[in-house]
């Protein structure tokens, strides 16, 4: 536990050392939100929910690509001697989930600034969003592990991760639509559970498979 928090803190320090990259991601999301605002001018609930998730997806893709790509081969070898793979992946996952959450909240703030905040059922919205973001972060972390140390890393990353994220995205859009009262669905709880189930399956698989990935 202690070591997990140490790795977590190390990630944080590394991230803050590269202030430009970090600022770049937040600026990217702000710019896109502003672009959407200027393109649409008036945004309906449906468009709001779609744009929110599309922006989050692509900003997250940009952000998490570098979670394993940014580090050098030598650093990896160093980690390999130092940490247990389970501790490393746990710390990375926690870091990426929190980072994606932060990114999502900042996008949400930008969006409500420019385009309003049409959510009618915040409890459901944040519940569904946090579960969905967890799933997206897990998949992105996993795929960034596969796509690392390769020049075409980011292309491969989007090719590999977007199909895997699609089912989560569909559930998320439905939950968001319900929480915006765009559609009414009495079985939305089932979707939330489904999302939690997908998260659990993905998490288990990543933890089981990580040691094999780690050996390189």
């Amino acid at each position, binding site marked *: 536990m202690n070591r997990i928090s140490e790795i977590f803190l190390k990630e944080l320090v590394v991230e803050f050392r590269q202030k430009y990259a970090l600022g770049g991601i937040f600026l990217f999301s702000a710019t896109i939100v502003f672009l959407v605002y200027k393109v649409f001018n008036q945004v309906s609930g449906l468009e709001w929910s779609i744009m929110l998730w599309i922006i989050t997806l692509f900003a997250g893709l940009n952000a998490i690509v570098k979670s394993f790509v940014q580090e050098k081969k030598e650093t990896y070898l160093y980690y390999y001697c130092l940490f247990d793979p389970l501790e490393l992946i746990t710390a990375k996952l926690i870091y990426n989930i929190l980072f994606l959450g932060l990114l999502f909240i900042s996008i949400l703030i930008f969006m409500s600034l420019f385009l309003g905040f049409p959510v009618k059922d915040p409890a459901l919205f944040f519940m569904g969003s946090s579960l969905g973001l967890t799933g997206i972060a897990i998949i992105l972390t996993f795929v960034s592990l596969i796509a690392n140390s390769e020049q075409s890393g980011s292309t491969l990353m989007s090719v590999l991760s977007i*199909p895997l994220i699609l089912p989560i995205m569909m559930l998320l859009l439905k939950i968001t639509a319900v929480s915006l009262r765009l559609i009414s669905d009495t079985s939305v709880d089932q979707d939330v559970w489904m999302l939690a189930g*997908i998260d659990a399956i993905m998490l288990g698989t990543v933890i089981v498979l990580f040691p094999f990935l780690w050996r*390189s």
Partner: protein
Amino acid sequence: MIQKGMWWKLSGIILFLYVLWGGMTIPLRPGITSINPSSAKTGDTIELKATGYNTHFASVRNGRAWLKLDSVHAIKALNWQSENNNEVTFRFILPQTLPNATEVFPLHLIIDNETDGAFVHPNALFLSSSTDTLSFDAIPWTKHELGQFNDHQGIQFPYRSILNETIRNTFFHVALWFAMFLLLIFGVVYSIRYLSTSDYEFDRKASAYTNIAVLYGIFGILTGSVWAKFTWNTFWTNDVKLNMTAIALLIYLAYIILRGMNYDQDKRARLAAIYNIFAFIALIPLVFVIPRMTDSLHPGNGGNPALGGEDLDHTLRMFFYPSILALFLIGKWIAELTIRFERVKDHFYLKKS
């Protein structure tokens, strides 16, 4: 002459030829395509004209017909008059009274003769009361005994309205999905074995099986698309199963791209194996859970019947299960050829360097 390991390839081909022959030549059971008129009032005498499919109305002996209300109430047709094999006219004298107090009754038409056997057209005629005051009396409805039905001769596929002749696609469209899933299971098992042994042979096998499964998936989409054009009148709908298969195919196409990357062999094999396992696990909620939670036009969802009852009766089963086996064996054969080619290629490169 026959080499070792050849029997399953041959049996795959023979089974597939058997499915092709049987699935394409065996006729459908006779059925009714349309009824005129479709509604009547009590006390009427109606001339009910039925248009049939694969029927032999003009040449039958001992043809009979009933309008059936439920298990005890039915009325018999007075005559059997047909000009050609596909058209027949019955005269029914509808009783003055209804058997119990309901405003509109759906009546089912049962036709029975010695050539075609007995068949039913459900909800053929809607019967409503001619008077405002509902009087009911079951006696005129109960005196017509249904008696013994004739059985149809030989093997015939069930006649289902809307599906009609396209029911034969069951042997190809549905069987392709089953075979695809079997091949995917083989692929993922070989991926797991690669991870535990680091033997490139398992990597080649996993890749070959997954590739052929993707090919089957594409064929499955194409056959399904054609089927949908004839039954749902569109090539692609917003149906949950279609969306999920599209996603699944995208995931596996990404696998093929990953497998084709220019990594060194060890790394490529390991990444591909890991991604394959992950993709397979991600596929389970996609294929088995989400479609069951949502309504779909497919059988087995949203109240539609699934593989059972009259949709997959014993005549269809005679070809459906062999078709799965045949497609699986042919897929295994293609995969085997790919594996051998890859093995030779790897061997050649190793020698050269």
